[in-house]
């Protein structure tokens, strides 16, 4: 059974056109085989064509921004990584960047390199997760299971480094919590070589597969003008030809110390986006090798004031970083106290999963709903926070 059969029919409208097709309302709902994350799309369909799509977020609204107002600056560190379930390191990084900007804290150089390596490993894990979701949606189960297995190897690395597989709580204001264990560099290199050695298999099974080309080429196509007008960032924009990557535009951590390129494509359809994701994964792996070679010795942590009494001077800031899905930003306001006054995350999946998804699904066929949603690289918990 293909993973993109839609769910339950609810009610029919009275209009029937001459061909006998009725307009139905279908829920591509939170409980669905092909849905990644708890997210729902209400589809008004006529025959096989979608007339109108409405995104229904809110199943994962945990109220993080309000919760963070009741916890001190340090107490928020274990909380903030849970906003994005698939790639928690970006959330830790953006919160840490915000606090450091407001409080004026410097980070030692070795910690910047370790942060970049952590973030790139998280990007690799997140892209492998996205590859699992996407190839499963299209029906290519074999590369999906390979991708999940390789992500497991990356999670084992994180477990050795931080103690946790998914939520690491490793990046905090001032640096990182601890240095690399003995021999960890070699284990990173070994794991990445074993993943990278499978790239020809992935290519021949999935990326160069004629069936994938037929399913995805020309589907969910967006032009660069529309992408810019609707607030797209990340792969959705890079697949239309713009080399917009926050790691190049406004470098943070150690990204300006290594030589790397931003992969782009021209067509703007689902096929290009998945190819950009593949190229970015390979670029991340190369970047990790270069960072490991260039990493200096030294401290990994600059002391911050006593966390129980730490008060940050009043001010506001907007910091941004590149998560695996696009531009992740944080608007943070401090009123001089020991807790944040207002925290607002600008997550990349917010414009992609709400505005762009609704526009791209107009006139699409039902079979392409999952294809569109996952190629837009939407992570549902990021939308709701």
């Amino acid at each position, binding site marked *: 059974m293909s993973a993109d059969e839609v769910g339950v029919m609810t009610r029919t409208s009275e209009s029937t056109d001459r061909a006998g097709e009725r307009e139905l309302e279908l829920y591509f709902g939170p409980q669905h085989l092909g849905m990644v994350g708890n997210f729902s799309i209400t589809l008004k369909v006529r025959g096989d064509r979608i007339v109108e799509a409405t995104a229904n977020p809110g199943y994962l*609204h945990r109220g993080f921004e309000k919760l963070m107002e009741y916890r001190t600056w340090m107490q928020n560190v274990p909380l903030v990584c849970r906003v994005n379930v698939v790639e928690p390191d970006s959330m830790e990084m953006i919160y840490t960047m915000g606090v450091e900007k407001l409080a004026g804290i410097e980070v030692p150089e070795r910690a910047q390199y370790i942060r970049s390596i952590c973030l790139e490993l998280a990007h690799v894990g997140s892209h492998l997760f996205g590859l699992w979701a996407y190839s499963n949606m299209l029906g290519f189960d074999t590369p999906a299971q390979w991708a999940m297995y390789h992500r497991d190897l990356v999670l084992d690395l994180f477990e050795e480094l931080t103690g946790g597989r998914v939520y690491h709580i490793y990046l905090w204001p001032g640096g990182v919590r601890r240095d690399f264990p003995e021999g960890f560099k070699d284990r990173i290199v070994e794991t990445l070589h074993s993943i990278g050695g499978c790239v020809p298999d992935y290519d021949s099974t999935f990326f160069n597969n004629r069936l994938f080309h037929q399913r995805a080429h020309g589907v969910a196509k967006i032009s660069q003008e529309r992408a810019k007008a609707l607030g797209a960032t990340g792969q959705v924009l890079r697949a239309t030809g713009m080399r*917009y990557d926050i790691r190049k*535009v406004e470098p943070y951590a150690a990204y300006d110390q290594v030589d790397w390129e931003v992969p782009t494509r021209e067509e703007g359809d689902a096929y290009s986006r998945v190819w950009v994701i593949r190229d970015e994964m390979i670029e991340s792996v190369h970047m990790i090798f270069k960072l490991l070679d260039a990493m200096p010795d030294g401290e990994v942590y600059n002391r911050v004031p006593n966390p129980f009494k730490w008060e940050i001077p009043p001010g506001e800031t907007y910091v941004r970083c590149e998560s695996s899905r696009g531009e992740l930003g944080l608007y943070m306001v401090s009123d001089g106290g020991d807790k944040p006054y207002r925290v607002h995350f600008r997550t990349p999946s917010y414009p992609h999963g709400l505005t762009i998804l609704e526009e791209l699904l107009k006139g699409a066929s039902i079979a392409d709903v999952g294809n569109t949603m996952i190629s837009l690289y939407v992570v549902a918990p990021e939308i709701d926070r």
Partner: protein
Amino acid sequence: MTASLRKGLESTFKDVEVRGSEDGRLSVLAPKDSIPVILRHLRENGLDHLALLSCVDWQQRGTLEVVYILSAYMQNDTDHTSDQRLHVFLRTHLPRENPELPSAIAVFENAEPYEREIHELFGVHFVGHPRLIPLFLEREYRIPPFRKDFDTRKYAEETFDAIPPVDK
């Protein structure tokens, strides 16, 4: 780009207050009715990305502050310049009773879900928004939940503890 933007804003609009900071952030304070015009002016001058539309509840001062954070995309096929590092914070203050603001959708189409979210969480009414229905929440709230006078614990006790247990 920062200096020319600043000069343009101060000469075109008479009741704005522009402050710059050293790391490429420009802060513009404007009255609420000029917001759509200023947004259009900024967009025409190269700031075509509405990164975030946020709201802060200054309970002590009695205002809600709505903040538009704008930045610039690159042109296709070019490399980035220092223009991409510029951020403009356009802000306005609204009264906490019946806050109203013209919608920004005519200028930035991606403002639509942000305005729905601020409407349901802070209670700001955006005039001209095509569907100002709740985005995340499902219940009715007497006080919008993200305001500072909304007590989460009190709300939970009133709403859920009021339901008697099954065996009563």
